[in-house]
């Protein structure tokens, strides 16, 4: 019941050395080609050489030729799956529908907005808070008692900090005890950030 082993093909050691020499030759070819030119043709030839080398190793070293057809189907199937994956992604990853080469400019990034020209005003701050801050800090400023965001009301230390420190954490974002505050310097103008802080101070108290 002992199957004709795939290697019982009578290859002498010399045969393998010859294959090895051919492989080295192919390597030299692709190295030389790679060195002298950069044209897409050269790249295509280099990959063709690489594929040929792989085929040589498969056929002579791994003796895949002597395996029954369905064994070769396994490897070919895996390569086909990777091919389907590659082709399926070309439209999205290479041609990228809707790609913005320069990257997304955030809504408030134009230079006029980096300095707060007016004194902070809680009235304007209320609208900024309602749109951007309420989702986490909630209307009552408790941040669902500290589970979603800082709790201004019951955690006195939060608003006890000076304005400069609070403005900095609004601008650059902050991560503490499992909560993460996104940075707002790209999304809100300096004026809006100052107004929002003024609203928070008046609404939830604790002037420093």
């Amino acid at each position: 019941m002992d199957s004709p082993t795939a290697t019982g093909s009578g290859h002498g050691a010399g045969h393998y050395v010859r294959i090895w020499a051919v492989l080295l030759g192919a390597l030299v070819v692709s190295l030389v080609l790679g060195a002298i030119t950069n044209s897409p043709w050269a790249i295509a030839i280099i990959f063709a050489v690489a594929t040929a080398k792989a085929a040589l190793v498969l056929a002579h070293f791994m003796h895949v030729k002597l395996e029954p057809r369905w064994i070769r189907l396994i490897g070919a199937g895996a390569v086909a799956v990777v091919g389907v994956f590659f082709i399926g992604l070309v439209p999205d990853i290479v041609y990228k529908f809707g790609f913005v080469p320069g990257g997304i400019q955030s809504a408030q990034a134009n230079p006029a907005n980096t300095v707060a020209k007016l004194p902070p005003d809680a009235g304007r701050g209320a609208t900024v808070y309602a749109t951007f801050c309420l989702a986490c800090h909630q209307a009552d400023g408790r941040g669902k008692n500290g589970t979603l965001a800082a709790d201004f009301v019951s955690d006195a230390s939060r608003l006890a900090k000076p304005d400069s420190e609070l403005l900095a954490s609004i601008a650059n974002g902050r991560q503490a005890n499992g909560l993460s505050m996104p940075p707002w310097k790209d999304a809100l103008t300096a004026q809006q950030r100052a107004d929002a802080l003024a609203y928070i101070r008046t609404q939830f108290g604790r002037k420093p």
Partner: protein
Amino acid sequence: MSSSAAATDLHAPERAGDYTSTGLPTGRVAIWWFLASEIAIFGGAVACYLLYRLHHPEWAEQAAHTVNAAGAFNTVVLLTSSLSAVLAHHAAEQGDGKTAARWINWTVLGGLVFLGVKAWEYAHEIGAGLVPAKSLFWSFYFLLTGLHALHVIGGMTALYVVGRGAARGQHLGRVELAAIYWHFVDVVWIFLFPLLYIAS
């Protein structure tokens, strides 16, 4: 996950229930399936690299910083160790465990040289500030070559274990399986070399 756990052996089936419905030793059927899953992993990573590469032609100048000489030398090392692996398998196939073990040791040595050159390359690149976070090309470079190096280490341990068994004349069928796995690792490098080094 080497195939050293393969139960069957070319020459002396160990257990009564040990026959093969297809005539092929089960170990060899298993190694091809294992390579299919490896092709899917490496293929997926290389496909992602190629997709990004097609979108970023400017990576070519970053790829120029890869040390082609080291890559070429490593290719020669792996090709040679593939030769020694097939000679080991050739010897094992004729039942000569001793010679097979010697060729296997050459193959493992080839793997060590490869890893040595790789380590030098990594040190040289990291020294020059070319770390994975530097740019996406380098992220892929370290992902692909790192994953390949891990598989070289895996292949070397498999070869070493099988080599020790072969020296004592046991499980000679496994030499062929470890050799097939090593050739696969070599074939992956045959594709990685032009992708990362030459294409610049």
